[in-house]
């Protein structure tokens, strides 16, 4: 048995340490994330299974749906990112793969993305500086999701159903540039930072 232990680091937190300014945004950590893609011809069966297991109706459009302990955010045609708390779901991907056997392909994405949340009255102004989609509440109501880019960096984003919080997930390796953009965009509004 190895005497060496590994400890995780958060990509945004690392970026935060080296970034130039702070903003009214927070790093979101502690989620287990898996990519779920329906197998050929299994969309309906998958939806039924997910409904049965998690009480969630998989959205066929860009939205997030939250069930008992698991959220499914649309991630492309017949694809979702399933998210759950990491502390209670350490083996999330494998569990899911087992549970969705034959119905979906599952791939771990827990580490593939860095997540940040943005909220407050100026959230939309901040995001508009890089996100080229309409975030007006009429066009992007609570629960909406989108795959797009922010200042040339790919993001999957959604607006929580519960409160007015945007979550943006960018590829992990882009975290530092993403953070620079976000802070620079927010700085005009004298924001505050949280974890």
């Amino acid at each position, binding site marked *: 048995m190895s005497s060496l232990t590994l400890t995780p680091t958060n990509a945004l937190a690392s970026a935060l340490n080296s970034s130039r300014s702070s903003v009214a945004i927070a790093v979101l950590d502690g989620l287990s994330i898996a990519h779920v893609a329906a197998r050929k011809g299994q969309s309906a069966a998958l939806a039924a299974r997910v409904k049965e297991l998690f009480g969630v109706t998989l959205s066929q*459009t*860009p939205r997030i749906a939250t069930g008992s302990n698991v959220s499914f955010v649309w*991630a*492309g*045609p017949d694809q979702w990112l399933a998210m759950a708390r990491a502390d209670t779901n350490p083996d999330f991907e494998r569990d899911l793969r087992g549970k969705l056997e034959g119905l979906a392909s599952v791939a771990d994405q827990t580490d593939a993305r860095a997540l940040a949340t943005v909220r407050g009255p100026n959230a939309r102004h901040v995001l508009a500086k890089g996100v080229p989609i309409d975030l007006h509440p009429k066009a992007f109501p609570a629960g909406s999701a*989108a*795959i*797009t*880019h922010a200042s040339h960096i*790919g993001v999957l984003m959604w607006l929580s159903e519960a409160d007015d919080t945007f979550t943006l997930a960018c590829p992990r390796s882009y975290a530092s540039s993403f953070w620079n953009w976000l802070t620079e965009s927010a700085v005009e509004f004298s924001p505050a930072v949280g974890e």
Partner: protein
Amino acid sequence: MRISCPYCGERSLDEYLYIGDATVTRPDPAGANAQADFYKYAYERTNPAGAHKELWYHSAGCHAWLVVERDTRTHEISSVETAKDVALKRNVAKGGA
């Protein structure tokens, strides 16, 4: 220019990549004139001034390939379908014939 992705909604040009003509399809590699057919498939283009069916990739979005019909003189888009649907229909047509 903005293209309506059937999945994601209307998005600006810079979310998409273009590959070209969607009226040519991969020939039968076992066909008698495979090399000539593949030459035509890979190289010869109608390149019309007017309606053009073409393949776009929603690279910054959902990664769907789309078949877009667009007027090359005005850039006006008349239809968007997913490449997958078009391909499935095409395959059915091929199989059915």
